[in-house]
């Protein structure tokens, strides 16, 4: 019997990445030496492509955002990527936007992004409900996340997907299933800079957001697993291993 290690991060949001979180994660990866690295989506922010983006948003362009996302892929080197709702904007607009010029160019960038994933040998899935990825040993389902409630997001995702690890809500949360079969679900903190995500400045839910990521171990024979949060609380990065 042997255990394999995995590391999960999500919501880096392109050029809105939190530099301190990025450094903590990369240093943790260097020391922990995970067998699997998972990025749970929202690799990019793509705010100029948001429905209702202001002229100011659009004027900002997407090059810096896109390049920062690719740079983070090259640093973190994930084996698995589950695209998020922000990433999905280029796929969605590329498929069904009424502006033909924008649609065509988004479709082309989406296609080239798939080439970039392939070049880096990343197994990825689009942001589609019901789609998820798993490690070869089994264990939790990995996905970006779909439910946005701040009240027990891990429990809500568990109700729909069973044992899973997801991002999307930026709020660390754990739900241990009260079920004969056991199970557990976890919502991850984010790698994107909470202070820079101004779109949520008026939502009380933002107060539950934390910088953070998740690491875990999986039994390569049985698929049983456990995982833990690393969270920045105040000025400290707290993990079950101690202060990082």
């Amino acid at each position, binding site marked *: 019997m042997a255990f394999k290690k995995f590391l999960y991060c999500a919501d880096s949001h392109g050029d809105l990445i939190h530099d301190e979180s990025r450094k903590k994660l990369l240093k943790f990866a260097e020391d922990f030496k995970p067998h699997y690295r998972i990025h749970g989506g929202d690799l990019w922010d793509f705010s100029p492509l948001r*429905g*209702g983006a202001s002229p100011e948003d659009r004027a900002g362009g997407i090059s810096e955002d896109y390049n920062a996302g690719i740079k983070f892929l090259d640093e973190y080197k994930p084996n698995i990527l589950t695209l998020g709702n922000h990433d999905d904007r280029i796929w969605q607009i590329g498929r069904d936007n009424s502006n033909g010029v924008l649609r065509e*160019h988004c479709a082309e*960038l989406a296609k080239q992004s798939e*080439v970039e994933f392939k070049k880096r040998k990343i197994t990825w899935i689009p942001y589609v409900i019901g789609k998820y990825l798993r490690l070869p040993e089994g264990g939790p389902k990995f996905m970006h996340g779909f439910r946005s409630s701040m009240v027990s997001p891990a429990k809500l995702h568990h109700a729909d997907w069973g044992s899973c690890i997801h991002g999307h809500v930026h709020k660390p949360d754990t739900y241990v299933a009260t079920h004969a079969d056991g199970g557990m679900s976890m919502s991850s903190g984010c790698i994107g800079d909470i202070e820079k995500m101004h779109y949520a400045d008026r939502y009380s839910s933002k107060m539950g957001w934390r910088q953070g990521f998740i690491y875990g171990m999986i039994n390569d024979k049985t698929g049983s697993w456990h995982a833990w949060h690393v969270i920045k609380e105040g000025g400290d990065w707290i993990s079950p291993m101690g202060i990082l």
Partner: protein
Amino acid sequence: MKNAKTEKALSSLEWAIAQSVVPPRQEDEFTCEEFLRLGGAPSRSSAESKLKRMVSNGDLLKRPFCINGNCCMLYRKA
């Protein structure tokens, strides 16, 4: 490091986004909500149908617009 095709796709999309910038709202433009508030119609549904009729008669021009992330129509005199 991105490949050359990705670089090209990225700069083309930047151009397309710049082209798709919607002109700002003008002083003489109004929404259905504002039309209703100023007494243009007794209810939301009658304001909508009244504005629709005026657009089809050629009295008003309309265009889609987003206010605080919500999409709506802006109207102005033709």
